[in-house]
C-alpha cells in the first residue's frame, strides 16, 4: 500500500460495503447463469471492484458515466438498485431496461448512467459527445467518466476520441481498466506499445497516470484529483488502473489462455481482502462491522435474486415499444 489513509470509518464502511456488494452480486449472477436464468453473455467484475468503487462515488449527480459491457460493478457503485439490476440480467420487466437491454446494457438516465455498451470502443464517441454537450450547455462544470478496457484501446475510435477530446478540451476522464487481457488475448500480443497503455495518451497531449487498480484508496485519491483537474476546463485526463479479473472474460470462457498459477498469485492482490485487512489494522473497521456487513450484503443479494426470479417477463407488446422516441409537440 502506497497511499496515505485519509478516510473516516464511515467512509471505510461505505467502501467496503459497496465492494462486497459488487463481489456478491457478481457471484450470484454467475450462479444464476449456471442455472440458465441469466443468459447470453455475462461478464463479471470480480477482482476489479476497487476501480469502480474508487472512482464513481467521487462523482456528482450531474456528472455522467459511460462504459463497456462489464458494467454491473459500475452500475452498483453509482447506486443503481441491485434488485433492478438483477432483474435486468434475468430479462424481467422490472429490470433497468424492462428486460430489453440485458447484462451488457444497464442504463439509468436519472442517475446519469449512460450504459453499458456491447460494441468494444463504441462508447468513446458517445463519451466525447456528452462532454461536448456539457461544454456547450455552459451550465455546470460536469464531467464525463468513460470506462474502457485494454482491448478497446485497439479500436480506431479510441484514438479518434482522444484526439477530439484533447483538441476541443472536453471534460472527460478516460478510465482505463487494464486487466491485461482482451478476452483471450494478452495485452502484449495486441498492443504495439505494450501493457503500459497510459503512454498512448502522450501524443494527444492528455495528462496520464498509471496506478495499481486493486488499491482502492489509491484509485480514490487519483480519481479525486483527476476530476478536479477536468472540472477546471482544460481538457481530459487519462487514468490507467492495473487490475486483474479472477474469472474468465465471460461465462463462456474456458480461460485456457492464463495459467492457474497466475490467477492464484493475483488472488494475493484481492482488493477486498486487502482493504479489509487494512481497515482492521488501522482500526477503521472492527470484525463485528465486517460480519455485520457480510450478512447485510448476503441478505441484500438474496433479496435481489428472489426479486428477479419472481418478477414477470416483459409483455409481448414491449417488443415494439421505445424503438422510436415520441416527437415534440
Amino acid at each position, binding site marked *: 500500500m502506497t497511499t496515505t489513509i485519509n478516510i473516516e470509518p464511515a467512509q471505510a464502511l461505505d467502501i467496503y460495503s459497496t465492494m462486497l456488494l459488487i463481489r456478491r452480486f457478481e457471484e450470484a449472477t454467475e450462479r444464476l447463469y449456471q442455472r440458465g436464468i441469466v443468459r447470453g453473455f455475462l461478464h463479471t467484475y470480480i477482482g476489479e471492484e476497487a476501480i469502480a468503487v474508487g472512482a464513481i462515488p467521487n462523482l456528482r449527480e450531474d456528472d455522467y458515466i459511460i462504459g463497456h459491457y462489464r458494467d454491473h460493478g459500475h452500475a452498483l457503485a453509482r447506486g443503481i438498485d441491485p434488485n433492478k439490476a438483477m432483474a435486468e440480467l434475468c430479462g424481467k420487466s422490472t429490470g433497468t431496461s424492462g428486460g430489453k437491454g440485458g447484462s451488457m446494457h444497464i442504463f439509468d438516465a*436519472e442517475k446519469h448512467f*449512460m450504459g453499458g455498451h456491447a460494441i468494444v470502443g463504441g462508447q468513446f464517441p*458517445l463519451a466525447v459527445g456528452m462532454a461536448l454537450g456539457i461544454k456547450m450547455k455552459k451550465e455546470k462544470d460536469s464531467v464525463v467518466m468513460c470506462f474502457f478496457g485494454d482491448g478497446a484501446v485497439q479500436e480506431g475510435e479510441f484514438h479518434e476520441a482522444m484526439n477530439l477530446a484533447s483538441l476541443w478540451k472536453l471534460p472527460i476522464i478516460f478510465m482505463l481498466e487494464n486487466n491485461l487481457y482482451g478476452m483471450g488475448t494478452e495485452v502484449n500480443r495486441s498492443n504495439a506499445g505494450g501493457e503500459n497503455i497510459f503512454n498512448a495518451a502522450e501524443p494527444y497531449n492528455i495528462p496520464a497516470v498509471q496506478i495499481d487498480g486493486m488499491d482502492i484508496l489509491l484509485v480514490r485519491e487519483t480519481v479525486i484529483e483527476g476530476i478536479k483537474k477536468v472540472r477546471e476546463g482544460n481538457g481530459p485526463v487519462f487514468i490507467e488502473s492495473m487490475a486483474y479479473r479472477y474469472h474468465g472474460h465471460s461465462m463462456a470462457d474456458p480461460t485456457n489462455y492464463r495459467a492457474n498459477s497466475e490467477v492464484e498469485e493475483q488472488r494475493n492482490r484481492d482488493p477486498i481482502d486487502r482493504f479489509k485487512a487494512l481497515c482492521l489494522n488501522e482500526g477503521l473497521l472492527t470484525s463485528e462491522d465486517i460480519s455485520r456487513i457480510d450478512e447485510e450484503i448476503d441478505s441484500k443479494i438474496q433479496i435481489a435474486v428472489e426479486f428477479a426470479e419472481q418478477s414477470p417477463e416483459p409483455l409481448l407488446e414491449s417488443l415494439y415499444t421505445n424503438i422510436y422516441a415520441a416527437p415534440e409537440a
Partner: protein
Amino acid sequence: MTEMILRDAVAKALREALDTDDRTFLMGEDIGAYGGPYAVTKGFLEDYGEDRIRDTPIAEAVFVGAGAGAAMIGMRPIVEIMTINFSLVAMDQIVNHAAKLSYMSNGQLSVPLIIRTVTGGGGQLAATHSQSFENWYASIPGLRVVVPATPQDALGLFRTCRKDNNPVIFAEHSLLYRVRGEVPEEYYEIPLGQARIARPGEDVTIVSYSGMVRVAEEAAEKLDELGISAEVIDLRTLSPLDLETVVESVKKTNRAVVVEETWKTGGFSGTIASNIQEAAFDDLDGPVLRINGPDVPAPYARNIEQAMIPSADWVVESVTYNFGL
C-alpha cells in the same frame, strides 16, 4: 410563394434551427471555414461562430457518435457526413448506437440527432464516391430516413425532423442541389411518412424517390406522348414509408414500376415491390417492375457511368413491353 434552389432551402432550414434553438449546433468536415463542401453552410461560421459551427477532424466515427452523445444529454446537434459513402466509417455509431439507444434503455434515453449527408452518383467520382446507401439505413429500426427531391420538401421535412427526437439520415442528392422549386412563404411542415403525388395519372404508377423523381417525371412525359397516363409518386421518406398512398395508386392504375438509383440486388425497390404485390395482388395487370441501376460498381468514364443510371427511356421501354401498352 418564393422560388429557390434546393441547396438554399436546406441552408434556410439550418439557419432557422440555429436561430431558434440554442441547443442546436453543427458538426462536420469543412462546414465552417471552407463554407461547406457543397456550399450549403456558406457564411455560417461568420454568422454563428466556431462554437456552434464546428469543423471536425476527418474522423466520422467519433464525430457522428459525438453527435449522438450530445443528443443523448439534451443537445440538438446536426452532423454532416460529407457523402453517404463516408457514412460507412461511422456505421457502427449510427446503426449500433444512435439507432438503438432508445430501445436498449427502454425509452430512458433518446437521440435527437440529424445526420445530413449527400447521396447519389453520376458525377464521375468513381466507385467509392458514387453510392447511395439510404436504402440500407431504411431497414434499421430506430432510424428515420428522409430523401427530399424538391426545395419545398427539403425545408418542410427538415422542420419535422427537428421535432422528431429520433436519429435521422437526411439524404440530399448531389445532383439536385440546383433544382428550382416554389416554397411557401408562410411556415409549413411536412410530416414524415407521407408520400407526394408528383403527377396524377390513370394507367401506370411510377414510384420513385430522391434523384429518380425527375427521371420518373420525364418517363411520364414520354409515356404521355404514347397515350399512356402515368402517375408519379415521390416517396419523400423511406422510413417511415408511406405504403398506403402507393397501394391506393396501384389499385387505381393496376400497374406499378419502382425506380431507384442504387443496385438492383438489395435495393429498397424490392421491399416496395413486394409490399405492393402483397397488398394489391388481385389488382395487378402485370408484375411489379423494378428499374434499378445494375449490380456494378460505378466506373469513372462518363459513357459507362451514364449507362448504369436509370433513365426515362428504361422506364418507358419496360412499361410498354411488360404491360402490353
